[in-house]
């Protein structure tokens, strides 16, 4: 099958700062999943009170919807949206 025939999936980079707390990463990942995105890469750095998380996400839903849902999390201090790109489906 020609990979070029596969539908494209938008890819997004998100930087998120959240408080250190029990289940912080689970909470974040759960929202990402339920709102329709797949985590392609994830980097986490602990900076004392905070976790700085960089995510590369793939999904066809509006990324602004995910951003607003992440911003609702009580322990999320900041969500910044990075560059948007388009990736080809990995299934081909």
């Amino acid at each position, binding site marked *: 099958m020609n990979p070029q025939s596969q539908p494209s999936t938008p890819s997004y980079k998100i930087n998120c700062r959240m408080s250190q707390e029990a289940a912080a990463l689970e909470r974040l990942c*759960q929202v990402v999943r339920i709102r329709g995105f797949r985590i392609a890469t994830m980097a986490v750095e602990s900076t004392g009170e905070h976790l700085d998380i960089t995510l590369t996400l793939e999904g066809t839903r509006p990324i602004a919807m995910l951003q607003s849902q992440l911003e*609702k999390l009580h322990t999320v201090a900041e969500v910044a949206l990075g560059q948007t790109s388009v990736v080809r489906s990995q299934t081909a």
Partner: protein
Amino acid sequence: MNGAQHILDAFHRHHISTVFGYPGGCIMPLYDALVDDVGVEHVLCRHEQACALAADGYARASGKLGVCIATSGPGATNLITGVANAHRDSIPMLVITGQVPSGLIGTDAFQETDVLGMTLGIVKHSYLIDDADTLPAIMEEAMELAQRGRPGPVWIDVPKDLLLTEVSDAPFPRQGPQDAFCPDLAEALTMLRAARKPILYSGGGISLAQAEDSFRAFAEASALPAVVTLKGIGNPGKHNPYNLGMLGMHGSRAANKAVDECDLLLVIGARLDDRATGKLDGFAPNAKTIHIDADAAEINKLRPADLAIRGDLNDILNTLTGTLQDKPLAISDWQKQCQTWHTTGGFKAADNEEPLAPITGPAFVRQLSRIAPDDTVIACDVGQHQMWVAQHYEFDHPRHHLTSGGLGTMGFGLPAAIGAQFADRNSTVINVTGDGSFMMNAQELATIRRYNLPVKLIVMDNQCLGMVRQQQELFYDNRESQINLDDNPDFVAMARAFDIPALHIERTDQIRRGIETILAFNGPMLLHVAISREENVWPIVKPGASNREMIDETRRTTNKEHVA
């Protein structure tokens, strides 16, 4: 003061006088502290799910924080459906569970479950206490968070050893008031004045924001034709001449028609749920949208807003009302058109004049609506009876209608009625339920008896899971599957086994006497109402279809004709 005593102390300071719970191993220190506490009334339900649903009903009826308590493991997992119910309907709730002692977490100890992990998706926030000295600040934060902005359940899981540990009496930080947020409403007013066919679309966010009076004033000042979601029923008031009632899957033909034709949709405190909008592509196709909500995440979630306004609904509504009182909207032709549609396409159920005829659901609910006092609280369950109440009972206040909207939890009604009765011991509270839903939490008859709550129970018994049967009839070639309940117990005898008197009716001429009898009785009483197995809720929109494609009783086919 240990952790358990501190929790009770926090209840006192926040004027929490009623909690719903069930004891067990890891929460025992809290129950031990309760022995010495006379300021908190602990209501012992007979199942943890009912504790959570009763706390939910208490919060819905009162506008206060609902509190439920359970032990670890099965106590916590049994709470989950009730907490998910509160989460989906944004009900302010504090959940406290015991957890196995700190050192045993992660060892598969007796009655250990990962409560924090398994509840992430059904809470506004949650905590696992790992240091007793953090408990005071977390209690404060949790109670504030559950009620702030868009409310929701907040869960605190406390290991047993930390309930017994002395907590610091150092002052804990208190969160100051949030910055006032005053959106500019000029553009909204410009759009309202420019619209020729505007519709006011409101939901459960009105009562969640405690903006019932502000909304009522706005609805009257604007005289906008108004539709409501299931949770918004009662917002405009039953005497509002432009109240078109509920829209959506089981909404009125008039409400759906008005939305279909409108050129401006003013959405306030609603989230454009699929049961209300039907297929989004065809929803209000010619309308601009102004979306006003406390939760920024709801705006643009499902339908792009031409104007988005996030903020305090009271402030926004009061500002809009003040402006409209000075200069009313000029929409008289549209008002008349909507009223005409309401006359021809509103919910109707002719009273059956034949005294020996079987009772129909809509006719019963309309009689109940006429007979029950205006401030009666109706706690519904989920199914056909829930829709008949939504369609035919005339509510004058949204807090009088307790219904499981988002989650659709069968078994909600009876514990919710218990919660509502504790919220106001003098109010008239009626649980309207079906035979399927009733059996989901029937054990709570024991709670009603224990506290001698004067809750009235109306079981509309069609001997089947009526809503499922209806959809199987209409959308699955009438292939009935697992809906038969004709081996139901004798509900009258069952109630009496709990020392609750009960009455059976089955004919039209028995409706009034039945309702009047249970309402007049000084104490709990059950009315068993036999209705036809084949009765359906009309109209209906097939799940996933456009609201234009309503199916009605007479045709049982897709009907795309206009109302008028």
